[in-house]
């Protein structure tokens, strides 16, 4: 479980996040949704410590991440996996080396054990026969799979996904979402997904957090999502012509 408590983040004079209080539950897909520029990515970067908070705290299973020293943070980060929007694969390394990287850095496993684990992770994301390929030789969907394989290599307790299906065709996007959900359920990971993909929200959002102008505007489940009376959320959901046409009366 991860908690954001009274979280504020400002850049110079501009307040980006204001009084965010969210609990991200274990074994569930916890989604952060909102328009571009609403502060979703800043929130996720604050949660993982890539950005320092202006005030507030982030708690990982009763461990206050905000007050930890750099050594403690480093230890906790071994329990975190992250799938970046663009994959963020190391472009100087092959697919296999990308997945092996966290294992080589932190696992203390033998070479054979690391190979076994890396191949298991690649198999788990249904990637075969691309071990020696370089990231730029893969499609966007395959890069995301490698990114997921790398993120789960060290058996993380917490998985962060920043717009995992952006830049992918709808079908590939659905597959990536399904993969994240399967992994979350299978390993009982606390998964935080940053998205503005409506299909992803309706299909996989166990707990949805809608951010608008840096504030937590609405919280609920996928079942409550479409019937919400929150005006800002309704405007966000039905902002496209397609969804306006299928809007429930």
């Amino acid at each position, binding site marked *: 479980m991860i908690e954001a408590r009274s979280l504020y983040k400002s850049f110079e004079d501009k307040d980006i996040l204001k009084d965010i209080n969210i609990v991200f539950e274990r074994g569930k897909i916890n989604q952060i949704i909102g328009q571009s520029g609403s502060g979703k990515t800043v929130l996720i*970067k604050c949660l*993982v*410590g*890539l950005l320092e908070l202006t005030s507030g705290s982030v708690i990982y299973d009763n461990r206050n991440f905000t007050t930890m020293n750099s050594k403690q*943070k*480093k*230890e906790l*980060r*071994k329990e*975190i996996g*992250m799938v*970046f*929007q*663009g994959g*963020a*694969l*190391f*472009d100087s390394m092959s697919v296999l080396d990308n997945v092996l*990287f*966290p294992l*080589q*850095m*932190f696992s203390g496993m033998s070479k054979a054990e690391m190979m076994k684990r890396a191949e298991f992770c690649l198999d788990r994301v249904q990637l075969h026969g691309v071990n020696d390929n370089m990231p730029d030789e893969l499609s966007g969907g395959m890069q995301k799979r490698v990114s997921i394989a790398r993120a789960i290599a060290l058996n993380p307790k917490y998985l*962060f996904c920043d717009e995992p299906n952006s830049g992918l065709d709808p079908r590939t996007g659905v597959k990536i979402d399904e993969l994240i959900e399967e992994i979350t359920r299978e390993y009982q990971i606390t998964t935080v997904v940053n998205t503005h993909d409506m299909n992803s929200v309706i299909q996989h959002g166990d707990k949805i957090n809608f951010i608008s102008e840096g504030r937590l505007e609405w919280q609920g489940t996928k079942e409550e999502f479409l019937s919400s009376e929150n005006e800002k959320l309704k405007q966000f959901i039905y902002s496209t012509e397609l969804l306006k046409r299928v809007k429930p009366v």
Partner: protein
Amino acid sequence: MRFFTNFGRYLILMYKAFGRPQSGKYFRKQLVEEISLIGLNSLGIVLIISTFMGAVLVIQAGYNLENPLIPRFTIGNGVRESLILEFSPTIVSLILAGKIGSSISSQIGSMRVTEQIDALEIMGVNSASHIILPKIIAALISFPFLITISMITGMLGGYAAAVIWHIVSSNDFILGMHLYFYPFEIAYALIKTVVFAFLIVTISSFWGYYVKGGALAVGKSSTKAVVYSSIAILLANVLITKLILI
């Protein structure tokens, strides 16, 4: 004000960069790769530049020392001094600042904009140490070799020009090369070289590491890396020369 802010950020980055690498085995592997990239890949350009630099120095010295009262061996002597004291360490370092500096800055900048540096940080890897430290060590090892090779090649280029175009006889040129030679001058040149190597890699890494934006910003940071590295080399050159030689 911005200068002091950037200087402070530079010092912080250096503090992080000199942190202990996460994996010694991985660090050694990266170090070998960086020596290959920074050292071996620069050998060709160093050889070409140094050969022509030495040849031109001889031609110009021959053109300017027409006075019969000045012995011809002075040409060999002057070329040696110019190459060891200034041309090989400083001019070659300035050229390497262009080649290596822009490469380092754009490589690290690309890693920043594609979130590869963030990925390292999330994993708990000290990204500055992981990326920058092998480059610094590789440059500190490679540069003295490159500059020594440049000195030798420059003298050979000068010798070839002197003999081919009959600017000075082979014996006079070699005599000039040997006369009044102080081995300390080599030490002075190598001290400068090591400082220049450090400045090129760290300044270029700084501009790459803190880049914000996309491809355009990476390009701009690459230009800044070369400009600031070159200025730093020139300033350090004056300071070191003043401290060591006078």
